[in-house]
């Protein structure tokens, strides 16, 4: 299992892995917001957390369709499925999701404080947003694994994957943003939405790989 994690991380980092695409997209989205919204610093800092979350959500969706397709194209997926007596397929998928998250999503979380400065956010809001992104984005990857597994045999399933899983990622977005706001706006709570966010991630850590495994098994042809 460690070997699978290392392999996928290596693949993501080497040329053509696409790890950089997500972060460049994230950077581009956040960098143009102040131009679109105008130089109203108060407004920017108010919508900052929401913009960071939307940007991160869309950037996370970007590379998801390749999660299993690359393995299918070169025949590795057959062997991963065949090895399911040694390594439970849902566990294999969980490891692949973790590797994908580490390579393409963790950099977004790390970059988010810097981009928070672009949005004129206060330190507490930046910290809270980075923390909620850290806890919430794995859920998006895990939900995305289901979509990626369903669309694995489609040659251009990229947009389809995003459309399939977008409704399921909405709760992540809602609780992520409300926890971020809760950290700075007084009457709003931080802990309650944050814990729900963590619960969503844990929930999909179990359900996502199992559903994706079922989809992959029936997609073999």
């Amino acid at each position, binding site marked *: 299992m460690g070997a699978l994690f290392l392999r996928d991380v290596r693949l993501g980092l080497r040329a053509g892995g696409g790890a950089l695409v997500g972060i460049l997209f994230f950077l581009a989205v956040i960098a143009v917001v102040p131009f679109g919204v105008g130089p109203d610093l108060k407004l920017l800092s108010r919508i900052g957390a929401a913009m960071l979350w939307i940007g991160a959500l869309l950037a996370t969706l970007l590379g998801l369709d390749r999660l299993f397709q690359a393995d299918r194209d070169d025949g*590795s997926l057959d062997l991963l499925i065949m090895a399911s007596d040694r390594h439970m397929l849902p566990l294999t998928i969980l490891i692949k999701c973790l590797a994908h998250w580490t390579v393409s999503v963790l950099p977004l979380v790390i970059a988010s404080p810097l981009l928070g400065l672009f949005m004129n956010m206060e330190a507490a809001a930046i910290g809270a947003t980075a923390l909620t992104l850290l806890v919430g984005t794995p859920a998006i990857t895990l939900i995305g694994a289901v979509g990626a597994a369903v669309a694995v045999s489609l040659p251009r399933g990229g947009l389809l994957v995003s459309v399939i899983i977008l409704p399921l990622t909405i709760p992540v977005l809602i609780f992520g943003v409300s926890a971020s706001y809760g950290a700075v706006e007084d009457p709003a709570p931080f802990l309650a939405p944050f814990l729900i966010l963590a619960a969503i991630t844990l929930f999909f850590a179990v359900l996502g790989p199992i559903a994706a495994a079922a989809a992959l098994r029936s997609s073999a042809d």
Partner: protein
Amino acid sequence: MRLIAENLGGERGGELLFSGLHFAVSSGEALMVTGPNGSGKSTLLRIIAGLLVQAEGMLRLEGAPAAFEGLTAAAHYLGHLNAMKPVLSVGENLHFWQSFNGQGQYSIAEALDYVSLGEIGHLPFGYLSTGQKRRVSIARLLVSDRPVWLLDEPTAGLDKASETQFTGLMRGHLTSGGIIVAATHLPLGLEGSKELALGAAA
């Protein structure tokens, strides 16, 4: 150890490709699956590998070593695709499959030597020629131990010398009590192997 199929039928896209197949392969025996294009050779191999569900009939492996629970767990599958990542080096690719599928009796260096690719373990897989890629894929069969080898056109792209070498490898596998089921158009040079001819496509 015996691989037994009873009244096996396979379909692809809702169309029955073959039905009523009976065969039994014991330890040390090879089964050559022959037939024209589209007769279901690959489908049969994928059914044995557990990647497709048979349309009818039974398939089982009797007396498998204790380490392997089912037929799928006991099988190496060498399909048309090589299951290697072009951006990783040959060594990294083999190392991954070895740690994922379990350490076999050969090390990576030994397996590469067996397919005469000892010198190029450091090169990215994508740089190799078709035949060399196939040989790396064959080396994958050696780095983890599986008693049943399912080979789909194993010699595609191999030159004469590598074919002879591969025949030697298969003989070694049979001598050590393994089973080989191979779909092929060309004779693989294994004496005394059984043959299963699949009919023409409808």
